[in-house]
């Protein structure tokens, strides 16, 4: 059965209240009346109404002020304002402040019917929208967060549980581990997902630029500020703001940020009007913030304000079992974007990738795969397509022999097992090279 629509009539004239009450009751609505704005707001504190029909001119608090307060309390409330003296100014003001409609008293019965019918339609659309949103929640996935390792499964579990809350989150992890992806996954699975995800790279901006970037600025706030500009906090209203490299912000900005996080209000640079925004903050850093707090480099109060939930992403070298999955994902990603069919990867190349310690983490792996697809023969990714030789020192070789074996194999692969060219590159003679190949039992990748 359809929900009974409820209407709150607010008018200081008793005859108007009574007339509207009778009219709406006969239409089957639930109706209550209030003779002034103060009483209406008291009623609204304890009861919910789908539609508020309010007179603009009332003694004490007027209808427009009441409209603003209702909207601040519940932004999706449907408020229709009525007036006996219509002026364009008041109409525009009311609509700007979020009124659903604006009518002049007295109105035709048909207008009243249409007004309420439109509002009712809006309510059912909003409810339908909400229902659909809840239905698609289960469809939302985190397909960019690849990994089957226990460490990654743990991260995914944490993302899932924290997404439904409004708590601040700090994502920690080495550079290139996918902190922004985790932040996006939190946002995409949160009730805020239909609102903006605003990303700010704090480390890339100077203090003054960051201030303007976060809070916005008014025209003339500084040289070159020719127009008003919305800040990132304002843009993130109802959504999430992602502050990357949070450890790099100055002490002054830390104070500002703490204030904004606590009040959810701010003033644009060069402005004087307080702006409020409902955002969720997600931060990321590759630094040890706790350590920075101990050294006095990061404010303790801000740290605790941000660090409600901490998600740590392990470095790629600690979850090498995820490398094949990631490689497969990046091959599909880049082959698709380059309009090529997905190509396989040579086992030797995969083995080598799993031996590598990836100081640049997933970002480095991604770049390697992209490069290999570009420079390779388009049929298979081979060891020679991977730019690993310059970082050979970072392999897991534990002895000089291991290192020599790996290095010789790499150069052989580079020169397609051409013994003369490899020997020349290694500055040894061919006999020595043969001797080493035999000693380390080296074979081309396709013969392994």
């Amino acid at each position, binding site marked *: 059965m359809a929900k009974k629509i409820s209407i709150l009539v607010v008018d200081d*004239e008793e*005859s*108007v209240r*009574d*007339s*509207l009450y*009778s*009219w709406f*009751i*006969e*239409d*089957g609505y639930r109706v209550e009346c209030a003779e002034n704005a103060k009483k209406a707001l008291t009623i609204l504190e304890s009861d919910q109404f789908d539609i508020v029909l309010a007179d603009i001119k009332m003694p004490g608090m007027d209808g427009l002020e009441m409209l603003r307060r209702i909207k601040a309390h519940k932004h999706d409330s449907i408020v229709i304002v*009525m007036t006996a003296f219509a002026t364009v100014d008041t109409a525009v003001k009311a609509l700007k402040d979020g009124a659903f409609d604006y009518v002049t*008293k*007295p*109105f*035709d*019965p*048909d207008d*009243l*019917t249409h007004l309420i019918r439109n509002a009712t339609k809006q309510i059912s659309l909003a409810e339908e929208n909400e229902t659909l949103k809840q239905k698609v929640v289960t469809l939302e996935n985190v397909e960019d967060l690849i990994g089957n390792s226990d460490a990654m499964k743990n991260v995914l579990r944490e993302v899932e549980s924290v997404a439904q809350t409004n708590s601040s989150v700090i994502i920690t992890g080495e550079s290139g581990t996918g902190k922004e992806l985790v932040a996006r996954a939190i946002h995409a699975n949160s009730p805020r997902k239909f609102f903006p995800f605003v990303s700010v790279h704090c480390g890339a901006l100077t203090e003054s630029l960051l201030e303007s970037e976060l809070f916005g600025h008014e025209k003339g706030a500084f040289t070159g500020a020719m127009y008003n500009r919305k800040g990132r906090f304002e843009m993130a209203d109802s959504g999430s703001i992602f502050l990357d490299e949070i450890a790099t912000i100055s002490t002054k900005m830390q104070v500002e940020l703490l204030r904004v996080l606590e009040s959810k209000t701010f003033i644009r640079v060069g402005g004087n009007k307080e702006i409020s925004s409902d955002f969720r903050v997600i931060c990321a850093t590759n630094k040890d913030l706790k350590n920075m707090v101990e050294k006095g480099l990061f404010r303790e109060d801000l740290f605790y304000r941000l660090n409600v939930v901490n998600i740590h992403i392990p470095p790629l070298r600690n979850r090498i079992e995820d490398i094949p999955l990631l490689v497969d994902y990046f091959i599909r990603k880049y082959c698709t974007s380059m309009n090529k069919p997905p190509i396989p990867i040579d086992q030797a190349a995969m083995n080598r990738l799993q031996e590598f310690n990836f100081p640049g983490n997933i970002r480095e792996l991604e770049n390697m795969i992209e490069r290999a697809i570009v420079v390779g023969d388009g049929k298979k990714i081979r060891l020679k397509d991977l730019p690993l030789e310059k970082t050979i020192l970072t392999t897991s070789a534990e002895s000089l022999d291991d290192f020599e074996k790996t290095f010789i194999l790499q150069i052989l692969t580079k020169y397609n097992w051409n013994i003369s060219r490899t020997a020349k590159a290694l500055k040894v003679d061919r006999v020595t090279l043969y001797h080493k190949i035999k000693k380390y039992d080296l074979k081309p990748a396709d013969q392994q």
Partner: protein
Amino acid sequence: MNLQNITLVSFGYFEKDLLEKTAEAVRQEFHGIVNVREGHIDLSEFYDPARRQYNGNGLLKQVDALSFPDTIKTLGLFNVDLFIPILTFIFGQAFLGGRTGIASLYRFSNERYGMTGNELLMLDRFKKEVIHELGHTFGLIHCHNPTCVMRSSTYVEDIDQKEQQFCLHCRGNLETLTGGFLAE
């Protein structure tokens, strides 16, 4: 005492035939005894010179203050243009679940809309409006069925679209609300 009586009270001049036919329609729809009486109210008290209309709220209260023996519902019949403060006009109104309603013939004649007069159509509209307002006094609210007499009508053309009978749903509600005394 017979509490099933419905009293139609005419204020101002009405054709006798129109009143009788209206009463007959009410009788058929409510299956009760319907009396027709003449009433007297000083209408000038309810006249609003700025709007050149009569205050429906005031008239409804005035009719409600009248008492008729053996009557469960009273409907005041007028031939003046009615308004309530918030609306530019009304055809009639009633106390929902109360004992009184009012209806006006004024806006039902075709001539008011620049069209050729049609007495039958005017009578039909009036009968529907009277039954509609009486339905409210019995506690019925507006119905979404396009042919039900309890359908809300804001134009005379809307009234022409509906029948002068209750739909099955509203009739069922009416019988529940009246404890079944309307059921034949």
